[in-house]
């Protein structure tokens, strides 16, 4: 197997399957072989993984106080039955 098996343009489309560990073993081997020989694709994978990390560090939207109050009312009404 040679690196010619998979182009960079093809590799970037497989990157989510790779990260999600959904690539079949043969494809995974091809993918990793390409990576081992290609700085551009290693950079691309690293960029993608860092992007995912930043996404995970985004603050979640806070709940508006008015919404919180409404929900508390709903809960209290329900409690009173």
């Amino acid at each position, binding site marked *: 197997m040679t690196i010619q098996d998979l182009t960079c*343009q093809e590799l970037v489309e497989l*990157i989510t399957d790779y990260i*999600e560990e959904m690539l079949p073993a043969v494809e995974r081997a091809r993918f990793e072989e390409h990576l081992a020989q290609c700085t551009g694709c290693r*950079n691309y994978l690293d960029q993608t993984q860092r992007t995912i990390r930043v*996404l995970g560090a985004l603050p979640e939207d806070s709940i508006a106080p008015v919404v919180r109050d409404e929900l508390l009312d*709903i809960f209290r009404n329900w*409690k009173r039955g």
Partner: protein
Amino acid sequence: MGTADVDYSEFDAAGARASTDELKLIAALRQGDEAAFMALVELYQTALVRVALMYVSSRAAAEDVVQETWLGVLQGLSRFEGRSSLKTWIFRILSNRAKTRAVREGRAIAFSALASATDDPAEPAVDPSHFYPPEHEDHGWWLSYPRSWEDLPESRLLARETRAQIMAAIEALPENQRTVISLRDVEGWTSEEVCSVLTISETNQRVLLHRARSKVRRALEQYLTEM
């Protein structure tokens, strides 16, 4: 709010069972523990609104649907037996309420778009102009390598301005891609949870996630290059 006529116990089926923590939370809710309820709201409100937005036309309508959902959760609580996880059950109630609302709005349900995610025209992860063209002997190879971010300090990536750029990129995504990336990467859901709540296949979920992540990466790259 018209939720009393629905028996939500039927949504308490299949999938992972409620966890021990969830069972404790349910017991607290049944005893009328306000803090437990607000903790639950804190946990799921954002995601509930996100998912509701896939069905209804406005944020106000989505928030309405979510409010109906919480009422449905409380009303169904006495019959909830933990056969599904609490999370799954809550989101099934949401889907039910949101679909009803969408029908009332006469809105074509956004899910038809979701169901056919893989039939959409291809959206390349990287603009083809970044690779050697088909007629070139090196076709499909990088014309120039994507820049290494190895030397980029983590603080730079997590800076407020960077995060603002990423949030703008998420907002610019089509609704279905935005929902999937938000649930998976921002809220940290598993693919199983996303598939179950959105009732989409694993493959569709992955296609949507792939397109969304590719665009956000591209936006981040663009922003970091301009610096």
